[in-house]
């Protein structure tokens, strides 16, 4: 079952982990797998007075950029675009750090652009590592022929991730070549790397300015992967309110816009961590798209490294 195991000998102390200096963990875990209620809030307000809200936002954007920026250490108008981009990424990472572990249920719907769709379900567990990238374990529940298959990622800040696949028919845990990152995740429009943990050190950054996406005031950044990737660059929009990923454009190796990701229905957990309830990836080159929906997010499950060892995949049911 997917419930927590016996408490580890050394209980995780969230407070210790949230102290500045202990924060090496993922920049928007699973690319906005951490994100917010901001849009929901917006939707609720819109019927009341759309114009009013937009006006308020416009005022905020015009009047408070220096205040917002003051929240981001290392960000200054005179700094280079690279330094400001990194400052925003680091701050987003800092705000997302300290959650220790989480688990959730995920439903993935594939659309082929010709009216056909396919639904599949999986469960995911994430462990935050104090001095390394996060660890993620995915367990596939259906379609029935892949049930029991599991996928484990140990992500790293600066080098290739370690990845394993578990094949239940042979009881075999199989190492996967790290380049698999750019491969399609379960035939979807998400690559493994889109779902991986975006550690700050994996990219070079460039701050591109402030823009508004879907009536949300955002910082716009460019991210350039430093490790092997299927992309040359990403353009990322983070809302100014809580630095949650709102949108990502992915450019392929020939510099053409390949995919667009939008994250929405952000929920806040433990009064601190934002996670989107929905993400949609649209492939602009083949017309296909994939929607991910999360539910039953649980934090503080006392998961530990043992739950994220390759051998642990054999015990999942």
């Amino acid at each position, binding site marked *: *079952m997917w419930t927590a195991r016996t408490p580890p000998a050394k209980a995780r102390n969230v407070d210790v982990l949230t102290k500045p200096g202990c924060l090496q963990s993922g920049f928007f875990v699973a690319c906005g797998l951490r994100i917010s209620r901001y849009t929901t809030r917006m939707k609720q307000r819109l019927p009341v007075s759309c114009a009013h809200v937009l006006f308020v936002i416009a005022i905020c954007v015009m009047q408070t950029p220096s205040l917002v920026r003051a929240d981001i250490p290392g960000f200054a108008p005179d700094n280079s675009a690279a330094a400001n981009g990194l400052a925003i990424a680091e701050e987003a990472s800092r705000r997302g750090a300290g959650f220790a572990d989480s688990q959730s249920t995920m439903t993935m719907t594939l659309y082929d652009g010709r009216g056909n769709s*396919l639904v599949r379900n999986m469960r995911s567990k994430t462990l935050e590592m104090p001095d390394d990238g996060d660890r993620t374990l995915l367990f596939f529940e259906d379609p029935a022929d892949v049930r029991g298959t599991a996928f484990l990622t140990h992500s790293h800040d600066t080098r290739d991730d*370690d990845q394993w696949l578990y094949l239940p028919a042979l009881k075999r845990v199989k*190492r996967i*070549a790290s380049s698999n990152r750019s491969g399609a995740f379960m*035939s979807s429009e998400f690559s493994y790397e889109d779902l991986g943990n975006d550690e700050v050190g994996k990219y070079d950054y460039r701050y591109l300015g402030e823009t508004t996406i879907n009536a949300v005031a955002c910082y716009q950044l460019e991210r350039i992967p430093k490790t092997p990737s299927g992309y040359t660059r990403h353009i990322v929009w983070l809302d100014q309110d809580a630095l949650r990923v709102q949108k990502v454009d992915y450019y392929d190796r020939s510099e053409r816009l390949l995919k667009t990701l939008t994250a929405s229905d952000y929920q806040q957990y433990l009064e601190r961590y934002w996670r989107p309830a929905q993400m949609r990836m649209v492939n602009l080159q083949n017309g296909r798209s994939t929607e991910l929906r999360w539910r039953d997010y649980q934090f503080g499950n006392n998961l530990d490294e043992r739950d994220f*060892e390759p051998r642990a995949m054999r015990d999942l049911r």
Partner: protein
Amino acid sequence: MNGISNRVRCAIFASALLAASGGLADNWQGEATVGTRWFVQEPFDPRQDQWDGFVAADLEYFKDWDKRRQRFAARLYARADSDDPARNLVDVSELYWRYRWQRAELSVGVERVFWGVTEAVHLADIINQSDLSANLDTEDKLGQPMLRLSLTPRWGTLDLFVLPHFRERRFPGSRGRLRGPLQVVAERAQFESTSGRNHIDLAARFSHYIGPFEFAIAHFAGTQRQPAFVPLPVSQPSASIAVAPLYFLTDQTSIEATYAAGNWLWKLEAVSSREPGGRGSAATGGFEYTWSRAAGTSFDVGIIAEYQFDERDTSIILGADDDIVAGVRIGFNDFAGSELLALAGRDLGGDGQLWSLEASRRIGQQWRASLEARFFSASAADDVLTLLAREDYWQLSLTRFF
């Protein structure tokens, strides 16, 4: 006729399985398969047929309790064949209780354990016996009774095994195919150990990974899973050569390693085992190179190449003495989860060749159709593939998952 009653039994079994079309309760999981094999050439032996059909079922149950410290798991596998009674099987592939501590676990019962990293041959894999009547690829296994203690400190995993009962290898029977002219008479099995099947085997394995590098070292002391063969006296003229399996005792030490670098995955397995004529060794190694979204498509394409040599005497039946195997694996990333694996093998010392194709795709949410084809060719009389030269086959099967 035994054959007809077998076919009837098969049909009843199949319809019962497929009739149970509803889902199973949470702790249960199962699958049922119907399939048929067509052999391209006429058989060696008039008792054999060119077609056969089979049904198989796999049912699994598990229960965790005591904050997941304890688990009970059971798995039953059954297969019935239309032609060959030796392919009929009811096997307890799992039946164990396990207790877990913080950094150790103990389990008692029947389990399946896989050792190894390569694709074409599995040299290090020795805990569970293979069922060659199901498939020549040694990936169909029989449940092995064991007492297992696993220690998992931070610096690796140490597994210790006590294996109290020996499972004999299963081979196709006199009426079954994929045996060439060789007919293994399992009832006449001989053992080097005076305690026969009850010799207590011991095994230990240490494994660990450091970033992209992963390795294991293991030792096994007990009855070799792969038998040698002793010709049996001929009582009446037959197209087949009757042999009895002879299981020697062995001490086998093995190493396994993988190294992941970019698109490359490097693999190595090597074993050294004590044999009646002294120590012998075998090794296999190679790589898998993967292109994700190859050439602008959504396909994942992997190239596999492995070399293997085996100087052990008992290896003769596999013919894996000095071979190279290369092939391609394609994941189509379509809604049907279509997959294809095509491999070609060549004996560098002779002219033996082996071609293999495995392909499958999902049908709806609950079904999967699979195609398997293997072709063998050899002309040299001393090449072991000569035995299989008339056993080319196509197999089509349909599996329902519950």
